[in-house]
């Protein structure tokens, strides 16, 4: 959530899009004078996307004041902390399926851990960090070949691991968007928007 007063500046819009999708005249000029950098592997691409959203959630978890961790805007929704715990827990549900292991801490059944198991801000931060790091390790270990393997996904169907990783990344993005609104409700600017 960016302020539209700032957004209405075409320069900022252009800058944001340049940073986001990597379009730049500078890049084009470089492309003409230098040999192109080798393409990343698919696993490296996935790893970048995974770390990008994961680290945004970690930054929020670290940044948000502990005494506001139980804040929520409306009664029928998750608190700040429960949003983070849910995002990380779903990551683990999927990481465990893909890796066929039992990585990560015991957070009970499902993907909505209780604060009882993660009482402090430090506990929540650690859990989110672990989920991002463990997912990154599995992506790296399995490489491109791992992305083409299939795993049982929701709805009792098999899905390619690449689709499952992408689903987890998108799911984290959705909860990141909600937490952006929680930030502003507390007169705070989300870490990624401090430019």
């Amino acid at each position, binding site marked *: *959530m*960016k*302020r*539209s*007063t*700032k*957004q*209405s500046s*075409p320069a900022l*819009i*252009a800058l*944001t*899009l340049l940073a*986001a*999708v*990597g*379009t*730049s005249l500078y*890049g*084009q000029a470089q492309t003409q004078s230098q040999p*192109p950098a080798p*393409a*990343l*592997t*698919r696993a490296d*691409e996935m790893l*970048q*996307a995974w770390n990008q*959203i994961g680290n945004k959630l970690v930054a929020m978890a670290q940044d948000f004041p502990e005494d506001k961790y139980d804040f929520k*805007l*409306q009664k*029928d*929704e998750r608190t700040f902390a429960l949003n983070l715990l849910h995002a990380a827990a779903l990551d683990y549900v999927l990481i465990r399926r893909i890796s066929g292991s039992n990585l990560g801490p015991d957070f009970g059944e499902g993907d909505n851990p209780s604060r009882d198991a993660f009482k402090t801000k430090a506990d929540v931060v650690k859990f989110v960090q672990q989920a991002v790091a463990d997912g990154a390790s599995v992506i790296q270990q399995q490489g491109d070949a791992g992305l083409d393997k299939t795993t049982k996904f929701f709805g*009792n169907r098999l899905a*390619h691991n*690449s*689709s499952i990783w*992408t*689903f987890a*990344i*998108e*799911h984290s*993005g*959705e*909860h*990141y*968007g*909600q*937490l*952006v*609104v*929680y930030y*502003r*409700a*507390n*007169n*705070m600017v989300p870490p990624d928007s401090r430019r």
Partner: protein
Amino acid sequence: MKQIRIFLLLAVVIFAVTALGQGQATNSAATPSAPQAQQSQQAPPTIASTVDREISGVEKQILEVAEAMPEDKYNFSPESLNIPGADYKGVRTFAVQVKHVAASNYFIWSPLTGDKVPESIKDGNGPADLKTKADIIKFLKDSFALGHKAAATLTTQNMLQTPEKSKSPRLRLATFGVAHAFDHYGQMVEYLRMNGIVPPASRGKSD
């Protein structure tokens, strides 16, 4: 004696129902039923169809929240609630959130298709003259149509290549559009809830 017979009969019925249920579960996991068998005869998923499915997923969710917000609330921003201790000054209205997603879709996906970004899009907030809910939703739908066109260009041969006017590989661009839309979907969900509207995807469940 009669009670024992009834008990045995019940035990047989329960056993039969349980066995039938297990059989069906096993069938659905291991042996395709008729519709599944039909599905397996379809072409296997490709990189294009896989990404297209992702785009369809976020398209459905964003369109649902765009439809769920009443037109007279399209200019809602949390700033208007004057929440004590909050600072929403100047943040996007609901309408601008929708237009931002659509405009970004054009910027992100057009390098894949080679299409020109429409002249009406001057910045990331989309055309300023789009005011009605119907027009804004049409703009959104058109942007996702470009997304489907972009997904269709993906092949295993070109997905790691960088298209002209971009530094990111095709696959990254295609999926970044989806991830970006989900970020704003999360914000739009909060805008709906601030207006007492349960997001369509959350109706009937706690998530």
